[in-house]
Structures are given as structure tokens and as C-alpha cells.
């Protein structure tokens, strides 16, 4: 949406809100709230012999305002990005890299009724379990491109109806190609609640996706049917979704499918979750189906199939919580497939333990994934030891190690952290990391961070030093974070 239109829309919304608030008796009944955030980064060059590796400063400011009055909320978010260096010299992995100046990032009017809710402006949306539509912000990964359009949801005792439509910008491609990929998505979902805690539903989505090259749009149609039951006999949850997709590109049309099923059984302190996924040619820019794996690992959803079993238990008598998972996935490739591979088998398992003994808390987990056809093994070890000091203090020792090994190559990134936190005032931490490439090239990184909360509405964070970056995952999505060397500060004020 053009910048002027965004500002006009926001001004109209805020004026409406102001008029509505003015109409309220002595200010009662409405509430103004929001956040102001300022981030300042001084990036220092690491390779002085490289003319493209230069020092630069990045200033990012966000102001979010919301006015809530009766059932209506009106909001806007302004962003200001100021860089000391031209776009081409900034870190290519920084998703903010190609934006600059003042921009109205978000604006909305939201109605929340007993049965009907709706929103015009910017919003995030997903349908079902994300097989047909998934457009979300991910703060950890830095994805923050909402849909600009409208959505409405009607719910009655037995029926839920959702419609959604608008424009959305894909963040990673836009950064990579330095232009906005403005796509259009629209669709809907209906779910009927049946007797015996069962449900039946489905969703349909169409999308027009801007091509990378040549200019033009590709089209996607995807639909799904879903069914299941929640709290069956008080101990069982069942869910299943069956989807088909058609992708019409410049020179070809591809069909694919997505199938997902899960069953969860609760037996006192023990929970058992079984999942099965089967996705073929199923990925498009705006879907993210269940990965049947861990939130802090990366998963493909274009060509993969297989089951996973997760068992967790709260061993009440010892204060321990244990969990373990085993999964076996493969692709649909056959020995006769183009490329000549016989599949992409992967076996993964992990186990974890949480234990509290008096003032000491420990949590640790080990993840192992063997890509059998690729000849690659991944391991991820996490350990945190917390020791209470006094009434409100705590010392934390943390360990996070990711290793990827192939026949002639290995890459390991390890972070060790020592921190002290004092409630409610904040945390100070020291971080030592190292990156090891095949045992012969080792780089070390040191960093220190202090977070202070002078009040509950104000937070100040300062980091100085270096960090290797690497794979960062949250909510099942992952991306490579840029390395960093320098100083950065963040100030957030909530009002």
C-alpha cells in the first residue's frame, strides 16, 4: 500500500478514535496504551582488509499507539530507520537493511463483539494449523510484515467462520532482492462443532505471488479439510487435516499435498503425543504446517513424510520432569527421481530433564538428527543451571552447543553464559562463544550484556562485544542471524 494511503488511513482511524474518546464521559471507558522503542547499533568492521566490511551505525525507533474504547481498538505503529552507511554496505542478513526513513508500519481498527470480531488495516492471520495460510510476526527471527487488508470472524455455539484478505510483503525475499514483494492473499475457514466434542471444517486460500524474475505473478490455490475431537473421554485429543495445493507458475503448473494427523493421550502425569506428516510440493510463501519436531530446530515442509512419538512425564515424587521424542522422516524421492537420489531419510531423537532441588534448578536436553542420505549429523546440547542467591537473586550458568558433522567437514558453535539476575531490577551477563570449523579454525567471541528495569514500564539493555550469530529458531522457524561486533542498546518504554 502506498505510504500516503497508509498515513491517510492511520490519520482517519486516530481521528475517529479521538472523537469517540472525546465522547466518553470524563475520559472514562477508554484507554490509551502503547510502546516506544529505540534501538541503536554501532557495528564494527571485523575484516579491515575488506572494503565492504565497514563500521556503521543503525538507529531504529518504533512508536506504537493504541486507543481502546468500548469494543473498538484503534492502533498505529510508526517506524524510523536511520543508517550511517549506504544500503549495500550494511549486513545482508539484517532484515531491516533495505528500509530507511519514516514509515507507517501498522494501522488498524479492531472490533471485538460477543460473536463477531473484525479488523481493518494491518493484522496477522493463519487458518487451521497453518497448512493453507500462515502470516505471522516472529520477533526472535525479525519477521514483521503483516497483511494489509481486512479480516472478520463469526462464532456461534456450533459454527466458526473466518474470512481474510489483503496484501502482504514477504520479508526475506524483499531483503534479498531489495524490493518489496507485494503479494495478495485471500481465503476463509469454516468449522462446525459436532456432538461428542468432535469438529469438522475446512479452509480455502488463493494467492498471487510476485515473481523474482521475470516480473509478473504466480498463482496458488490451496484448500483443506480438517476433523478431530478435543478432550474425548477426558483423556484423548485427535486432529487431522488433508490439503491439496496447485501452484501455477510462468512455465508450469505443480500440484502437491499436505496431510497431518495427531493423537494425544493423557494418563495422569504421563502424556503421549503421536504425529504424522506427509507434505509433497506443499510449501508456498504463506503456509507453515506442523513440523512434528522441536521449536528450536529447522524443518522443511516441501517434501517430507514420517511419524514422530513424544512422551513426557512429571515424576511428582522426585520433582523431575522428563521428556523424550523419536521421529523418522523421509522425502518422496525414489531412486528413479530426477537427481538420482533414493530419498532423504532422517532419524531424530531427543531427551530432556528438568529437576528442582531446593534452591537449585537444572534443565538440560540433547537433540540428535542423522541425515542418512546426506551423510550429515546434527547435535544440539542445552544445559542451564540456576542457583538461587538470597530472596531475589539468582546465578545462572548456561551452555548451548550446536554441531553439524559431515564426512570431511564439521561446524560447531558453542555459547557459555554466566549471568546474575536480581528481581525485579534486571540481569547482568557475560557470554563466551566459539566457532569451530573442522577442528582447525577456531574463532572466539566475548560479550557482556546488562538489562536494567528502573520501573516495570521501562527497560534498558546494553550489549557490548561480539557474537558468532548462526542458526536461530523460534516456533519451528529458523534463520541465520548475522554475526555481530560492536555495541548495541535498546530502550523500551511502555505506557
Amino acid at each position: 500500500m502506498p505510504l500516503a494511503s497508509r498515513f491517510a488511513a492511520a490519520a482517519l482511524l486516530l481521528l475517529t478514535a479521538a472523537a469517540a474518546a472525546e465522547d466518553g464521559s470524563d475520559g472514562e471507558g477508554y484507554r490509551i496504551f502503547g510502546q516506544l522503542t529505540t534501538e541503536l547499533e554501532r557495528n564494527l568492521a571485523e575484516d579491515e582488509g575488506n572494503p565492504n566490511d565497514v563500521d556503521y551505525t543503525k538507529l531504529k525507533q518504533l512508536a506504537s499507539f493504541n486507543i481502546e474504547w468500548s469494543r473498538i481498538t484503534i492502533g498505529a505503529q510508526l517506524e524510523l530507520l536511520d543508517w550511517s552507511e549506504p544500503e549495500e554496505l550494511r549486513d545482508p542478513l539484517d532484515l531491516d537493511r533495505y528500509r530507511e526513513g519514516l514509515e507507517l508500519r501498522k494501522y488498524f481498527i479492531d472490533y471485538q463483539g460477543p460473536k463477531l470480531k473484525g479488523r481493518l488495516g494491518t493484522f496477522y492471520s493463519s487458518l487451521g494449523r497453518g497448512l493453507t495460510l500462515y502470516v505471522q510476526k516472529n520477533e526472535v527471527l525479525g519477521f514483521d510484515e503483516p497483511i494489509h487488508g481486512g479480516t472478520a470472524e463469526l462464532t456461534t455455539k456450533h459454527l466458526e467462520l473466518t474470512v481474510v484478505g489483503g496484501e502482504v510483503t514477504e520479508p526475506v525475499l524483499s531483503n534479498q532482492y531489495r524490493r518489496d514483494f507485494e503479494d495478495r492473499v485471500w481465503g476463509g475457514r469454516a468449522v462446525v462443532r459436532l456432538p461428542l466434542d468432535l469438529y469438522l471444517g475446512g479452509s480455502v486460500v488463493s494467492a498471487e505471488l510476485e515473481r523474482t524474475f521475470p516480473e509478473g505473478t504466480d498463482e496458488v490455490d490451496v484448500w483443506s479439510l480438517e476433523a478431530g475431537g478435543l478432550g474425548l473421554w477426558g483423556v484423548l485429543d485427535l486432529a487431522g487435516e488433508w490439503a491439496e495445493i496447485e501452484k501455477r507458475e510462468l512455465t508450469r503448473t505443480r500440484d502437491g499435498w499436505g496431510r497431518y494427523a495427531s493423537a494425544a493421550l493423557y494418563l495422569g502425569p504421563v502424556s503421549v503425543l503421536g504425529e504424522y506428516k506427509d507434505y509433497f510440493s506443499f510449501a508456498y510463501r504463506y503456509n507453515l504446517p506442523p513440523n512434528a519436531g522441536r521449536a528450536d530446530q529447522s524443518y522443511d515442509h516441501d517434501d517430507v513424510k514420517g511419524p514422530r512419538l513424544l512422551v513426557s512425564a512429571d515424576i511428582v515424587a522426585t520433582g523431575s520432569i522428563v521428556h523424550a521424542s523419536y521421529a523418522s522422516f523421509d522425502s518422496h524421492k525414489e531412486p528413479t527421481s530426477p537427481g538420482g537420489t533414493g530419498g532423504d531419510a532422517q532419524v531424530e531423537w531427543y531427551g530432556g530433564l528438568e529437576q528442582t532441588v531446593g534452591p537449585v534448578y537444572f534443565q538440560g536436553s540433547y537433540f540428535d538428527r542423522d541425515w542418512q542420505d546426506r551423510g550429515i549429523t546434527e547435535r544440539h546440547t542445552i544445559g542451564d543451571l540456576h542457583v538461587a542467591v538470597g530472596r531475589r537473586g539468582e546465578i545462572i550458568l548456561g551452555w548451548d552447543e550446536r554441531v553439524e558433522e559431515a564426512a570431511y567437514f564439521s561446524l560447531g558453535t558453542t555459547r557459555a553464559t554466566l549471568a546474575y539476575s536480581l528481581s525485579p531490577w534486571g540481569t547482568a551477563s557475560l557470554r563466551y562463544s566459539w566457532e569451530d570449523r573442522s577442528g582447525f579454525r577456531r574463532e572466539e567471541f566475548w560479550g557482556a550484556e546488562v538489562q536494567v528495569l528502573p520501573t516495570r514500564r521501562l527497560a534498558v539493555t546494553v550489549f557490548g562485544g561480539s557474537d558468532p550469530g548462526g542458526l536461530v529458531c523460534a516456533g519451528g522457524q529458523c534463520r541465520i542471524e548475522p554475526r555481530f561486533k560492536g555495541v548495541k542498546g535498546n530502550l523500551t518504554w511502555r505506557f
Partner: protein
Amino acid sequence: MAHPDRCSVVLAWLVVAVVAVVLAPGDAQAGPPPDFRLQDLNGNWLTLSEELDGRVVYLTFWATWCVPCRREMPHLQELYEELADRGLLIIGVNTDPPGTTSKIKPYVKRYGLTYPTVLDPDNNVLDKYNPTRELPYAVLVDRSGNLRQVFPGYRAGDEKLLRDKVLELLAEGPDGSAQAADGASG
């Protein structure tokens, strides 16, 4: 995209800050929290405004991948078991993406949580409460339905401060007056 000079930007930000300071109420008169209607783990709808009902409500946003959230949960369950009869309601708002929905109930069972958990997979509710979305993030609502305190993040020992604040609010009547018979010493 527009690229104003730095002086204008600083001025604009100052205006924004002053407007926010002038218009935003302080902690004690913060008004009602943004209302929402979300589904719980069994598919039932929960509307916040209907749950307030003269109770003190602690609304906490969390995700399965958030370690501090995991540390806080047993303390919240303990507090809920102790004070639910006196008028405390804790509502957990899970913000995991929709693809992980099947994992959330086993997770809640693993920690033995008995207070209600609702799902905000699109994070549109979280966005209203905390646009920068760090987790955990919680707010405390008094018996009159006014948002009284925010709790960004969790550090060991925060649960003691929370308990003190909850007891203070439980001792207040719906109009903010002290309730003598409530025995708020805890």
C-alpha cells in the same frame, strides 16, 4: 520511502513522547485491559471481560520455546492453588504458532497447570498488550477490572513480588477500598 532530516526526526519523536506522557494514565488508573475472545485447549471460547467478575486476574503470555516462561509456571500454579478460592484467576495465553497446537496441551499437562490456558496463534492479542512481544509478559487486573501492573519477563524472585501484589489487590473491594475481613497478610 520518506527520509526526513535527523533534526525533524528527533523533534517528531519528542512530540510523540510528550503526547504519550500527557495522554497515558499512570499505573493506578490504567483502565480496563484490552478485551479478547480466544479458544481454550478444549475448543471452548473464553472472553476476558466475562471472566473478570470482581476477581483479581493475572494474565500471562507464554510460549513453549520460552525458558523463563517454563521457570515461572510452577510458581503460578502454586499461587493459583493457594489463592483461587479468595478470588485470584490466572489465565495463560499461549502464543505458539498454529502448527504446534497439538503440543501445547501435553506441555500444559506436563507442568500440571490447572488454570485456564487460551490460544493466541496469530498473536493479535499479544500485539495489543505488548507490541515488542518479548515473553513472558503479564498484566495484573484488579477487582474493579482495571489494569494495575505489568510484568515484563521473569527473573527468579519475581514470584514473591507478584504474590505480595496479588494479596494487596485481593484485599481491595471492587471500588478500590480495603476489605477488612479479607486477611491480606498472606
